[in-house]
């Protein structure tokens, strides 16, 4: 974005562009092997094996969904119990107020409702979306990451990051092009 002189502090990282998913995967493995830790890969679709290549920690989304779904069961069933037994009991044909089999369908639906909403919302929150600005978009060719190109970015926060050496390292991976990512 800005045209002022870029120093290491104003760099987000160093980015290399590749033409295929295999090349990106290979580059990610080698980057990690070289000791870089703050690395991210960008691709137009999920690349299989990338989670292992970047040693990404296990996603917490399933745990959140489990909690959300169980909360849904409890809330749905609790609501039915409270309405039918405590707040507004109606005697119908001598049936018990707490007729739990009849409460199953609604509790089932609220389980799925809260579980599903948690899946979507927790995914967005963990990913920090919506995000109006991110430095990687400053790389002119990055728009191709949404179509047919694959990018690997070593971030400046990495302890091993050094402008010259990192650039040299990425060039050694035979990318299409290496560019600096301005903050």
């Amino acid at each position: 974005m800005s045209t002022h002189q870029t120093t290491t502090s104003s760099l987000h990282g160093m980015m290399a562009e590749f033409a295929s998913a295999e090349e990106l995967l290979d580059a990610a493995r080698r980057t990690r092997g070289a000791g870089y830790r703050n690395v991210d890969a960008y691709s137009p679709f999920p690349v299989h094996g990338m989670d292992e290549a970047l040693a990404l920690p296990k996603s917490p989304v399933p745990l959140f969904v489990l909690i959300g779904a169980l909360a849904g069961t409890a809330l749905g069933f609790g609501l039915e119990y409270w309405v039918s037994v405590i707040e507004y009991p109606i005697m119908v044909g001598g049936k018990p107020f707490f007729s739990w089999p009849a409460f199953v369908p609604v509790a089932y639906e609220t389980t799925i409702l809260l579980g599903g909403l948690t899946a979507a919302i927790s995914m967005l929150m963990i990913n920090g979306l919506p995000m109006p600005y991110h430095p990687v978009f400053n790389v002119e060719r990055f728009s191709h990451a949404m179509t047919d190109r694959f990018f690997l970015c070593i971030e400046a926060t990495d302890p091993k990051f050094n402008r010259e050496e990192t650039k040299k390292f990425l060039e050694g991976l035979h990318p299409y092009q290496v560019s600096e990512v301005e903050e």
Partner: protein
Amino acid sequence: MASVAHSAPETHAPDEVVHPLIAPGNSYKSITEKISNVILSGKTPRVWFFWFGIAFLFVNILGLSATVLLLIGTGIWGITIPIGWGFAIINFVWWIGIGHAGTLISAVLLLLNQKWRTSINRFAETMTIFAVMCAGMFPLLHTGRPWLAAYWLMPYPSTMGVWPQFRSPLIWDVFAVSTYLTISAVFWIVGLIPDFAALRERATSRFGKVTYGMLAMGWRGSARHWHHYEIAYLLLAGLSTPLVVSVHSIVSFDFAVSVIPGWHTTIFPPYFVAGAIYAGFAMVLTLGIPMRKVWKLEDFITMRHIDCMAKVMLATGLFVAYGYGMEAFMGYYSANTYEGFMMINRMTGPYWWSYWSLIFFNVLIPQLLWFRSIRANIPALFWISMSINIGMWLERFVIVVTSLHRDFLPSSWGMYYPTVWDWGLFAGTIGFFLFMMLLFIRVAPIISIAEVRGLFAETRHGHGKKHGAEEVAA
């Protein structure tokens, strides 16, 4: 460096052999361009305007029918005692059923790892959402005063201190359908995020860039994002699968929990779910066949997809036929006078024509799908799917009307004659559905770009480069 635009596999599969899922000769770039050009090319086929105009006319008929209904009341409909559930419930069940194919394709087939779902799931999910919207209108309008439905249907602390009756299947229905709409929409939106990002980069107008940019929420295809995204998407599929089965089961409880002969039967939940999938696939084909032709999407919705859908229709059609057979058998075998009479009356009573047309449209005609040549014949498939659309509507007509019109007491027998307002509302929702689908095609990708790219990558690299496309088909 491997070339991105990978060349086409040299050999073409003969017609007898399965077709590829993505036509040969495509690349990541061509996939993205071909799908997003439907929206971004700025060229709208003339036939779009034609159907959009017709659909808009029917949306107005819907508005008129709903307005008159709200001004005067449900007396303008043909419903009466004993047929208190007429078109409103028939259409509600019909529309909900149509929606089910979307969830089945997007969720169940994802869990079953059926790769052919990839290029039709977005389209089918979109259909689900609009079909459920159409379905939802009917019970709400059937209350006559939808603005009061809030406290009849939803549990909220009103000043009147009344609460819904949770032992009633009608309340289960409210929860099932509203959950279904919400989760289908969430699933659909999550799936759209990476595609909006692709459109953001390809849009040329400022308005397009800003709009798709906002909708994409800053998606940048990061590996960390995909990591959480994939698991969330899979979990949504896992949650939608029991949901889709539960929704039509609960819809069938509206009938099965009552004591009316013809409704009070335990076969209803599975038979309704199979019927829903049957109707849904028929609608996917009815709309998908013209769509792939008009927007030249034959590369992604190939003959293999169409063949698979035809087979699903054949299978679910047989479930449904079994259901009809079992209903007739139980009428005899239960030795229950009312059940037996109901079945004889369905076949030979005043509504005999509806029962036998149902058998004709829904059971006999679809048997043509056994033939490979029919499954490869696009016009034949279009008309068979149209026949199933009609057949499934007749099924609900038969269930609702013939069961109610002659119950236990001959003194309370009656007939049902739908009025022009019944037809107006029904035709209006078909117009609304078409209207929304046509609008959607113009603003968002009708095929999931990200997923087709992923499938393409798998076919290219997973099984050797040369015969990639065929490998998927195998």
